[in-house]
């Protein structure tokens, strides 16, 4: 089995989808001839033709709006927003239209649409190339929101998302595109090559949306994370020596509450980690659910480690980014309670 980077795994999934399902169509800014600024669609126009994979004008509204119409026609559009930070112009189409199409028509018109977007920080991208916007999607009923953390997951989840009959927001942690970043910006990046979670089978496989993965089994503490923060959490846990269970949510909505509560009821302690700003981040929902479902088992308050409540800064990036030190400190704090 080959190991792939996350970019390669995504490209492989898209290539497969284009090959096997003639309804699949990719488009977005620079995704056609050039293959996307992160190269996730490189070579796909050359292989499948311009009508299957093409460049669009710079209008995120137009990209998603056109995709909604196309999906309603019966195609399977998979569109790219160049950075999650640029999804806002498309937000109305996503929230008011894609998410509610099935509901408002009682199933007469549907919107099987995948919106891919690179998410998160850690590349010195400043405020407009670093945002984590997942909580703005999880509040919107009718959407599914997926955040892979490994090449293997990225392919399996993306194929499942493309086959899903409803709109799926597919957030790709750009910090993980080329290697499982552990939050130590001052150490060399580990490449995906040779990494077990980067072993990607040929051909089609699906990872069901709504299933978390336990990345590290443990008994003393449950750490909930997704995307880049899974790797940061693993590094932090390793440093603390705490026997923590690290759960990679993979899908934020629908949420695998079962896996979470089973773990927290066992460990009695919970730390939640995400890059997005703290207030009203997805961690709030997780904390609210964990305290409601595991109240009698909790031995300490649920803690959240998140981006500070400031816009994403440029030069102070590594003071903003939740790194292993902050996560480890939170784990220790929760253990001491």
């Amino acid at each position, binding site marked *: 089995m080959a190991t792939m980077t996350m970019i390669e795994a995504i490209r492989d999934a898209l290539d497969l989808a284009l090959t096997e399902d003639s309804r699949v169509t990719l488009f977005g800014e620079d995704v056609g001839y050039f293959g996307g600024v992160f190269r996730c669609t490189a070579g796909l126009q050359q292989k499948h033709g311009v009508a299957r994979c093409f460049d669009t004008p710079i209008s995120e509204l137009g990209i998603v709006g056109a995709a*909604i119409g196309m999906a309603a026609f019966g195609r399977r559009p998979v569109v790219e927003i160049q950075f999650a930070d640029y999804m806002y112009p498309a937000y109305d189409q996503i929230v008011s239209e894609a998410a509610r199409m099935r509901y408002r028509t009682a199933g007469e018109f549907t919107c099987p649409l995948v919106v891919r977007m690179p998410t998160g920080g850690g590349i010195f991208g400043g405020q407009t190339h670093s945002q984590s916007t997942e909580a703005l999607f999880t509040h919107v009923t009718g959407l599914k929101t997926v955040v892979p953390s490994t090449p293997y997951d990225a392919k399996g989840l993306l194929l499942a998302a493309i086959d899903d009959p409803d709109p799926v927001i597919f957030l790709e942690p750009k910090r993980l595109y080329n290697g499982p970043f552990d939050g130590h910006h001052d150490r060399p990046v580990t490449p995906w090559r040779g990494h077990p979670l980067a072993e990607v089978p040929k051909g089609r496989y699906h990872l069901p949306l709504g299933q978390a993965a336990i990345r590290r089994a443990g008994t003393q503490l449950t750490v909930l994370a997704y995307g880049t923060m899974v790797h940061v959490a693993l590094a932090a846990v390793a440093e603390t020596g705490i026997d923590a269970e690290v759960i990679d949510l993979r899908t934020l909505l629908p949420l695998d509450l079962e896996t979470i509560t089973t773990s927290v009821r066992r460990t009695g302690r919970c730390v939640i980690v995400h890059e997005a700003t703290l207030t009203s981040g997805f961690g709030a929902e997780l904390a609210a659910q964990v305290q409601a479902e595991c109240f009698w088992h909790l031995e300490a308050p649920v803690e959240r480690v998140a981006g500070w409540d400031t816009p994403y800064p440029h030069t102070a990036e590594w003071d903003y980014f939740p790194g292993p030190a902050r996560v480890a400190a939170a784990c220790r704090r929760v253990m001491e309670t």
Partner: protein
Amino acid sequence: MDPAAPPLRLTFGAPHARPGTAPDFSDFPVPEAGAMRRPPVDTPAEEMRDLAFGMIRILDDAGEARGPWAEALALDDAAQLEGLRHMLTLRAYDARMLLAQRQQKTSFYMQHLGEEAISCAFQRALRPGDMNFPTYRQAGLLIASGYPIGTMMCQVYGNDGDPGRGRQLPVLYSSKAHGFFSISGNLGTQYIQAVGWAMGSALSGAEAIAAAWIGDGSTAESDFHAALVFASSYRVPVILNIVNNQWAISTYQEVARGSVGTFAARGHGFGIPALRVDGNDYLAVVAAARWAAERARRNLGPTLIEHVTYRAAGHSTSDDPSAYRPSDEGASWPLGDPVARLRDHLIARGVWSAERHAQAEAEILAGVIEAQKQAEAIGTLHQGRRPSPAEMFDDVYAEMPPHLRRQRQQAGF
């Protein structure tokens, strides 16, 4: 500082008249019927810019059909009589639903008064499989495509006969089979979706074209721009309709239109051919729509059509237009009443009469009332058989996820 420069100021567009002043359409030019040329559909866009500044009109004041658009149209008597019937049906339907709202059988209603020709006529240019992306003021598309008005009423009442299960505001119909895309309550959003739908059709090797609809006021929305950009970029087989009924709730069309002469001209910024048509002239609308549809089907790209009309009633049942315009303004609207104009044309041609018209009106009203009885026998907003509240949890997703199942249980279902 330039001593010669005047102080900077803004211009605020205002309507011809406000309550307390006399209606005034004296600066509204009404070109002669039959005067507009009809270029071949494959004429380059830059050679027919004049079409966006005049007005395609067929029916003159005497009820005669005139000019090249009339000649090319050649709509037979049966079709014209059917068109009249569609408009009368829509008008009768509107009257009954307005009343039903006043009787609190529903929460809300929106009329088409004065604008019936546009949607009733346009549908004639489409074929089965084609798809409209309408606004809330194009129910004529449904009527002209044979959708049962009883079912429309069930939607307005949100009763158990509503295919949309009472989820949407009244008048936001949907029927895939009738080429009528689910109406959104958000202005503009569907304009670009129509373009995307037509792209999907072309990419699938299908033959269906799409028609987008938007109001004069809503052309200011971003979706309008996205639609024109995409339609122009990929030369999409779509017809981009603007219904300029002079008003956007209380706001006169000039506020959205700005200093340009017409909304049709918006197309020119994108190299999209644009027609401006008398929207109260049933024949002119059919003629323009067919011209645009032929362009789409022949891969000649999008066409923009501005339908010029007047919103004779309030914006909705929540609106009282006498607060912002003279209540008799509609009476002096220079393009007249679309029903009367087609009626007079048919009478002038000897295939119709005042008596038959009165009789048809009565018959149609009776039919509408009969449909209404049947719809009300199912239920109205607050009475009778309504979709179970349990259905509130359906169709959020194809498959109900665990958290919604839990919530439905909590809700007691």
